[in-house]
């Protein structure tokens, strides 16, 4: 294996310098292009000179972007007025993303990944017309974005808003540029170079048996936690909400109908049935209001959280064993349709309405560790709470799944991997804006557990006013009126982030379309799409976890590796559903408020997965470059590792009961031993026993996660050091990339083709149709 990962010969003395003086045809990358075809890559010297030529217009453009971004950050961070306009969030984020994309992602491209468009991608050399299909870059961008975006970036920032808007905003925007988007880009690129291999397979190859196994087990456990807590968000949003239960419940028959339609009536008419489904969905939301308004409807669909949780568990099991065509595939269409529509609509509404934000930059809780929404100090808990919008380990599973099999040209990974994650971060910023556009008093009344608010409007208003928050003074009437506006019986203690986001979105959208009369519709519209995303994630997550479990058991009992063997499939599905179901029930019945204690575990799990993904990337990157540019991977890895390991240690060792699981466990166990019948927020002995049980489980989960992740990180650092030593000693490193093959197609790298790319496209278009491969994507 004497070649560098970018295809250049290792023994060439200048493999790390640019070959910009060479013409492309003489490149020493071991690839022999078909001489009858035009070049498959823009000449490097042409691209370099275009990148490095700064025309006055280009300088002016970037100066304006930088200036606008600077002013926006100044308005958000420095100016301390009564209010700040939401439009500054849009400018600060978009300008920072543009600069990060144009400059930082190019550094990663140029010095670390070195994509080579002369190489064929898996979509070209493994093309089968089904899984490996060259896809138009703009379409793939939407496709990848729809696969990575979900409920996570919508709820994390809402919960983090407890500390004020600025800490969350900084972490979402800076975090994505330096960490989240980097992770997605690297994983996508490395997986593409390996024929679309999964993160687990890459971990096994690069880190060996111990590191690989630890990564696999950690991934499995982390998926269980993530599914459980997403389910908890849905349960909290639907509990005691007849309207929500009806309209979300209706998505099941709608999806079944769509599935049957696509299978038997008009196969392949995806757009048509998605439109029909969308109309039915709107009807379900409107109908939900009517049904919840009737006496029988309100009685029949008024379910408590425990009933809904059990319903979700049973649903999760059935959905995961039903064939994909019947439920999962059609709901995925609906979910994608809604995702793109909602995000475009929310962005438009925020730009048009430009709400004034009264939430302070740093709230009273920014310097404390006993906030009512989530407990723990700003560092590290703010960073794990925001999770998906800034850095999401879950994306590594997507970026090493479907997307790398669809990429047309290597250089497009920057747009899709890095650019796609910037979009997700923008969604998180908009969710944050929506959440902080509502009154702070209402925010705390909605997001604190019942144990604090007392559950009624009077007690909640009294509790919120007793917090001593500046500018906060709500009455029971305010809370009752808000609930009435959004068509709910109560909004007190509707924690989990989703209801708060829905109120915020309804608040913004009603100023855009429809006025107060439409608030209830917008609220349930928001609840509906969040539930839709989450149900899809729960269903798909259970399936993926089931296969991982089947493969793992299959190492001991080979029969389990047969995926079509029903008893094995059902047993493994049942185990996975039981695992997340147990955590869900624990969260729903938790006297301490469920979300308050479990959401940090969700964030920690997600970012530990990110640390695992970045570890694998570090080990791979060390083989392709000297130590000089490894900081691109090492810096986000170090940050993610420090944040998550510190957070885990707080959760395990903190003597503060509100923060440490075991400290809480000890406090409650002692109270029980002392014969107390009520302690803190637990009003009965049974509730106290539940706390003892829950904290013990949560504590041990934290320990297992952090130990597994530390094993992965250590094995990755060892693999990295070994690779660097080999390189220094001139020894070859084991290479797991697929061999380089010459590409026979060309496509531009970014949204807007450069002049050189346009020329090449013209040259390719002049080829007789028979001599080139079919064009990708839509025509």
């Amino acid at each position, binding site marked *: 294996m004497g070649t560098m990962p970018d295809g250049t010969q290792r023994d060439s003395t200048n493999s790390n310098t640019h070959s910009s003086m060479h013409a492309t045809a003489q490149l020493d990358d071991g690839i022999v292009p078909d001489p009858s075809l035009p070049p498959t890559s823009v000449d490097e010297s042409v691209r370099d000179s275009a990148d490095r030529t700064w025309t006055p217009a280009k300088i002016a453009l970037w100066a304006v972007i930088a200036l606008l971004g600077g002013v926006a950050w100044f308005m958000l961070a420095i100016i301390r007025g009564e209010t700040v306009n939401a439009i500054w969030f849009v400018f600060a984020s978009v300008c920072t993303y543009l600069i990060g994309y144009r400059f930082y992602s190019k550094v990663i491209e140029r010095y670390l990944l070195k994509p080579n468009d002369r190489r064929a991608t898996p979509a070209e050399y493994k*093309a*089968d*017309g*089904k899984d490996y*299909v060259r*896809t*138009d870059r*703009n*379409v793939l961008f*939407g*496709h990848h974005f729809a*696969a*990575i*975006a*979900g409920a*996570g970036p919508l709820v994390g920032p809402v919960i983090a808003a407890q500390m004020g808007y600025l800490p969350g905003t900084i972490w979402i925007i800076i975090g994505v540029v330096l960490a989240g988007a980097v992770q997605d880009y690297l994983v996508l690129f490395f997986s593409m170079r390996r024929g679309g291999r999964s993160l687990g397979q890459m971990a096994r190859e690069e880190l060996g048996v111990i590191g690989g196994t630890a990564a696999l087990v950690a991934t499995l456990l982390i998926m269980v936690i*993530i599914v459980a807590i*997403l389910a908890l968000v849905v349960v909290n949003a639907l509990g005691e909400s007849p309207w929500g239960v009806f309209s979300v419940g209706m998505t099941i028959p709608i999806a079944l109908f769509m599935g049957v339609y*696509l*299978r038997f009536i008009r*196969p*392949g*008419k*995806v*757009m048509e049935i*998605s439109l029909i489904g969308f109309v039915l969905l709107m009807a379900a939301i409107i109908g939900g209001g009517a049904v919840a308004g009737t006496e029988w409807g309100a009685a029949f669909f008024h379910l408590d959280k425990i009933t809904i949780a059990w319903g979700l568990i049973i649903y999760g099991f059935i959905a995961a064993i039903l*064939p*994909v*065509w019947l439920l*999962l*595939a059609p709901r995925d*269409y609906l*979910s*994608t*349709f809604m995702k*793109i529509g909602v995000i475009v609509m929310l962005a438009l509404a925020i730009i048009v309405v430009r709400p004034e934000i009264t939430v302070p930059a740093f709230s009273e809780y920014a310097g404390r560790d006993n906030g009512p929404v989530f407990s723990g100090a700003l560092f590290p808990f703010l960073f794990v709470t925001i*999770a*998906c919008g800034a850095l*999401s380990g*879950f994306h590594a*599973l*997507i970026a090493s*799944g479907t997307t790398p099999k669809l990429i047309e040209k290597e250089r497009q990974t920057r747009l899709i991997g890095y650019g796609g994650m910037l979009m997700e971060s923008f969604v998180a910023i908009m969710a944050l804006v929506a959440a902080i556009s509502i009154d702070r008093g209402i925010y705390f009344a909605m997001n604190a557990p019942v144990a604090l608010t007392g559950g009624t409007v009077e007690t909640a208003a009294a509790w919120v006013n007793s917090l001593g928050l500046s500018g906060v003074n709500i009455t029971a009437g305010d809370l009752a009126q808000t609930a009435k506006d959004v068509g709910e019986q109560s909004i007190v203690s509707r924690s989990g982030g989703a209801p708060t986001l829905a109120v915020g979105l309804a608040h913004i959208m009603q100023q855009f379309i429809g006025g107060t009369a439409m608030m209830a519709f917008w609220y349930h519209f928001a609840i509906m799409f969040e539930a839709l*995303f989450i149900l*899809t*994630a729960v269903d*798909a*997550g259970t*399936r*993926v976890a*089931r*296969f991982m479990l089947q493969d793992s058991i299959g190492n001991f009992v080979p029969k389990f590796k047969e*995926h*079509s063997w029903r008893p094995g499939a059902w047993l493994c599905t049942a185990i996975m559903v039981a695992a997340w179901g147990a955590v869900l029930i624990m969260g729903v019945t938790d006297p301490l408020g469920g979300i308050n204690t479990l959401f940090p575990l969700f964030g920690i799990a*997600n970012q530990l997965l990110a640390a695992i993904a970045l570890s694998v990337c570090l080990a791979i990157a060390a083989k392709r470059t000297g130590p000089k540019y490894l900081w691109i991977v090492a810096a986000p890895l170090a940050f993610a590792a420090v944040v998550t390991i510190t957070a885990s240690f707080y959760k395990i060792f903190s003597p503060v009961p509100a923060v440490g699981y075991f400290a809480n466990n000890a406090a409650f166990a002692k109270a029980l031993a002392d014969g107390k019948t009520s302690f803190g927020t637990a009003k009965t002995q049974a509730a106290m026993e539940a706390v003892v049980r829950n904290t013990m489980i949560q504590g041990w989960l934290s320990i297992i996660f952090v130990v597994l992740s530390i094993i992965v990180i250590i094995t990755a650092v060892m693999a990295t050091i070994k690779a660097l030593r080999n390189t220094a000693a001139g020894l070859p490193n084991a290479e797991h990339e697929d061999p380089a093959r010459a590409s026979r197609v060309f496509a531009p790298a970014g949204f807007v083709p450069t002049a050189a790319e346009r020329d090449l496209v013209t040259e390719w278009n002049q080829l007789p149709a028979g001599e080139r491969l*079919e064009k*990708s*994507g*839509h*025509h």
Partner: protein
Amino acid sequence: MNAVLAGFRGFAGYLGGVLGADAYKKYLEHHEASGHTSPPLTERDFWRDRTDRQDTSPQGRCC
């Protein structure tokens, strides 16, 4: 008016691409380009095969 219609078509085509509605068309193109002599799957069979294969190779959906 034509420009509006073309714009709408383009948007619908894009959305269809993101949803994967053009999968069969791309399969046919691939089938033709790769010079298979056997007849391609029918549209109904193609979609059946596509969803059935997802039963054994599930794709994650993110949080």
